C-alpha cells in the first residue's frame, strides 16, 4: 500500500486491583483500576474506570503518587508494540499485544489515525471505508479477521474532538478484549 515506515511505538496498559489490609473485610472502592501510558506522550498517564465511565488524564508523576499511596497493586500488564507507517493522510500503527514479562502473544493490533480532521462524527464513514479496504486485503492474504473495536466515547463523556483520552479508552478496550479471549 506504499506506506512509509516511520518508527516504533509502544503502549503499556495495566490492570490494578485494590489492596485490602484485612482480606476478610470488604472495601468500598473500584474493583479494577486500568491505566495506560504511551511512548509518544511520556509525560502523561491515563486511568480508566469502566463501571464509572470515567477517563482521567494526569501527569506521569501520578504513577509515583499512586505507588506512595499503596492502595492499588498492579495485577497484570499488556504491552502493545510495533511499527508505525504513513499512508498519505493516514497514520497506521501495526503491532502485537503481549502479556508483560511472558511474551505470551495475545493478538495483533492495528491503529488507524486520520490526520487532517479530529472530529469523530465527520470522519466516521471515511474511517469505516479505510477499515473495509483492510478487511479485503486481509481476507486475501491472511488467516483470521480484523475486528473493528470502538468503545462508545459518549458513554465516557468524551467530546467529538479526538484526543489522547479517546486513545487511552481504545487501548483499555483492546486490553479487556484480549484478556477476555484469554479466559475463553
Amino acid at each position: 500500500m506504499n506506506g512509509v515506515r516511520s518508527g516504533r511505538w509502544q503502549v503499556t496498559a495495566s490492570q490494578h486491583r485494590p489492596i485490602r489490609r484485612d482480606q476478610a473485610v470488604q472495601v468500598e472502592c473500584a474493583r479494577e483500576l486500568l491505566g495506560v501510558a504511551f511512548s509518544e506522550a511520556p509525560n502523561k498517564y491515563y486511568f480508566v474506570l469502566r463501571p464509572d465511565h470515567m477517563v482521567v488524564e494526569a501527569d506521569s508523576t501520578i504513577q509515583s503518587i499512586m505507588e506512595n499511596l499503596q492502595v492499588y497493586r498492579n495485577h497484570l500488564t499488556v504491552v502493545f508494540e510495533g511499527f508505525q507507517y504513513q499512508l498519505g493522510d493516514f497514520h497506521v500503527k501495526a503491532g502485537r499485544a503481549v502479556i508483560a514479562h511472558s511474551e505470551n502473544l495475545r493478538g495483533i493490533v492495528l491503529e488507524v489515525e486520520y490526520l487532517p480532521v479530529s472530529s469523530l462524527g465527520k470522519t466516521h464513514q471515511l474511517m469505516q471505508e479505510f477499515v473495509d479496504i483492510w478487511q479485503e486485503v486481509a481476507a486475501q492474504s491472511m488467516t483470521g479477521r480484523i475486528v473493528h473495536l470502538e468503545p462508545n466515547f459518549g458513554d465516557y463523556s468524551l467530546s467529538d474532538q479526538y484526543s489522547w483520552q479517546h486513545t487511552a479508552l481504545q487501548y483499555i478496550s483492546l486490553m479487556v478484549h484480549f484478556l477476555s479471549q484469554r479466559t475463553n
Partner: protein
Amino acid sequence: MECVVQGIIETQHVEALQVLLQGLCGGRQEKLKIHEICLKSGTNLGVEASEVHLLCSLSQTDPVWTVRHVGGPMRGAGAEQLPAHVRSVLESSISSNALRFFYALGYKMDYELVRIGYVFQFQRVVPITVTATMLCKVPKLHAIDEAIPVTPGIQLVELTAPASTENYSEAVGAISSFAEHLAPLIHLSKPGVPTGVVPTASTAAASLVSRGAMKVS
C-alpha cells in the same frame, strides 16, 4: 522533595510584606485562590491509611486541578537540627474529574478549605516560592463562594523551595537565609513550631509602606 518554613502575620501587615518582597527580589506577584480538598483513604483500603490533597486553582479563567501527596518530614538527628522541614512532595496535574476519580477509588473527603492571597516566585540559589494566604473554611459542601476566614486578621506565610537528596542542605540554607530578611515582619520556622506574630511588626510595616509610597510618588 521540598523545604518549607512558615509563620503567621497580621492581615494589616501583608501590604508591607509585599513591599518588602518586591524590594528584596523584584519577583512576580500573582493572586492566589485555591480550593483545597483533603481526602483520606476509606476503611481497610491500602497497605496503611493514606491522605492526598486535590488543589483547584481558581486564579485562572479555567480551573486547574492538581493532586498532591506530601510525605512525612525527614527524620533523624541531622534533620532535627535543620531550621526547615524537608519532606517528600509529589504533584501531578489532573483532569477536572479528579474528585470523582478518588471517590471511586475509595477515598473520602476529610475537609475542604479555600486559600486566598498572593504568591511570589523568584530565584535565590534555588527557586523560592513565598505565599501569604488567608485560610477560609467552607460552610457547606463545595460552597467556595461562601468561604469565611478561619482566623480573620491573621494570614499564613510559607516559604518553600524544591530540594533533592543531593541538594537539600543548600535549599534549606537558601530559604533560611531569605527568611531572615523577613524577620522584621514575621518569624518563620518549621511547620508545627509555634511562632506568634512579631511584636514590632507594626513599626516595621509602617516604615515599609511609607517607603513604598514614596517610591511610587
